């Protein structure tokens, strides 16, 4: 047990943790910045929305190790190639959920809003985005958890992060480093999952919660 705690005191522990968090946060932010405009630009047309959703679905089927591994022959080793790969991984879940969420808003609700004289922009900001918010945040949550988990694999293409500790532990047959690194990553992923779950609930409009309760869900 004492050995395990020694892992957290290692010089490289904090720096690997920071690299891990940095990779994940930046990849997620760029992922949102790419996926959201695409979803917003395509959701009004059934054809382009379907293209976006299907592209996202294929993107989700690509194994995370495959994306990291495929970036390496093209961009080489290091932080930036890892960041590019993680960003590519972050996009599909957000794109799928944002597209489905926005295009599944009840057309009658939108008709009613139009009848009240709301402009396209007002309908988007006041009605479509709030109603789709829980679905969009669920996508961001999936993406965040996946990125935090996959950032572990950045170690294989020289991107650093907590995966370095796991690899070090396996190579030196040092269970303390291995277990310490693994547990930290697991805790980080669970914290991400719980935090984004909370965000999801915070951004669910009160009206939707009331409606959900009435339907008995």
């Amino acid at each position, binding site marked *: 047990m004492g050995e395990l705690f020694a892992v957290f005191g290692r010089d490289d522990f904090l720096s690997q943790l920071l690299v891990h968090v940095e990779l994940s946060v930046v990849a997620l932010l760029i992922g949102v910045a790419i996926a959201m405009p695409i979803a917003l630009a395509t959701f009004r047309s059934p054809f382009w929305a379907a293209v976006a959703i299907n592209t996202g*679905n*294929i993107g*989700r*089927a*690509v*194994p*995370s*190790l*495959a*994306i990291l*591994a*495929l970036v*390496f*022959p*093209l961009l080489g080793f290091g932080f930036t190639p890892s960041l590019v790969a993680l960003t590519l991984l972050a996009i599909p879940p957000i794109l799928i959920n944002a597209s489905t969420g926005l295009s599944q808003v009840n057309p009658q609700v939108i008709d009613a809003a139009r009848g009240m004289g709301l402009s396209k922009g007002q309908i988007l900001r006041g009605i479509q985005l709030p109603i789709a918010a829980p679905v969009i945040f669920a996508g961001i949550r999936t993406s965040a*958890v996946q990125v*935090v*988990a*996959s950032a*572990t*694999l950045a170690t*294989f*293409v020289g991107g650093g992060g907590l*995966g370095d500790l*796991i690899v070090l*532990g*396996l190579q030196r047959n040092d*269970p303390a480093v*291995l*277990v310490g*690194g*693994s*547990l930290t*990553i*697991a805790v980080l*992923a*669970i914290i*991400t*999952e719980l935090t984004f779950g909370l965000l999801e609930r915070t951004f669910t409009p009160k009206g939707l919660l009331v409606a959900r309760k009435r339907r008995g869900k």
Partner: protein
Amino acid sequence: MSSPAGGPPLAALQDLGPRLFDWGWVSNNLTDEIIPALQGHIFLSFVSVTIALLISLPTGILVSRYRKAYPPVTFVTGLLFSIPSLAAFALLVSLPGIGLGWQPVVIALVAYSLLVLIRNVVAGIDSVPEETKDAARGMGLTPRQILFKVELPLALPVIVAGVRIATVTIIGIATIGAYVGGGGLGDLIFTGISRNFPTRVIVGAVLATLLAIIADLLLLAVERYLRPWARERRA
């Protein structure tokens, strides 16, 4: 002492950049390396999904009856699901009695499938309309007959949808299992990275991706086939 210009032919060749893809390697190693890796990958994924299904079906059925057990079951399987795979493999390897090999990989892959599978078994059973069950009861079917002849067949498309998500996820995660000795397509990726030989990496990664996409489409076809009422409605 040799100057950088000392070994010109080789250095000049290297300056051209490493060849991205070597078709010769692929044809030379197709039967003794690439196909066995693909088969190993399919086998590993298939065994894991099958074991996970054998656990999830009874668990899902029980949980759909004893509703109070559902939140804790999803919580625990959800926690398992959010543990990054490399960490899970590494933790399992360090446990006594497991060690390197396919065992930690199969254990982790099964654990990852449980959340999706159990959730879909329960959702599938829940989707059976109350009137349908009433009709079955009225016809004098026992609860066991209702389960096997009414509820499970009607829940099947939703269960297959879960199998589909689990299979695609598992095919992806299994590539990482090669790092702890699980074999499969990940072997090509990892040896390619360590030998700085992109062809291996590309073959492993592309095959793993294709395998996941093909499995996804096949199971989607099964899912559609099992939903004849949806087909009729569309026609």
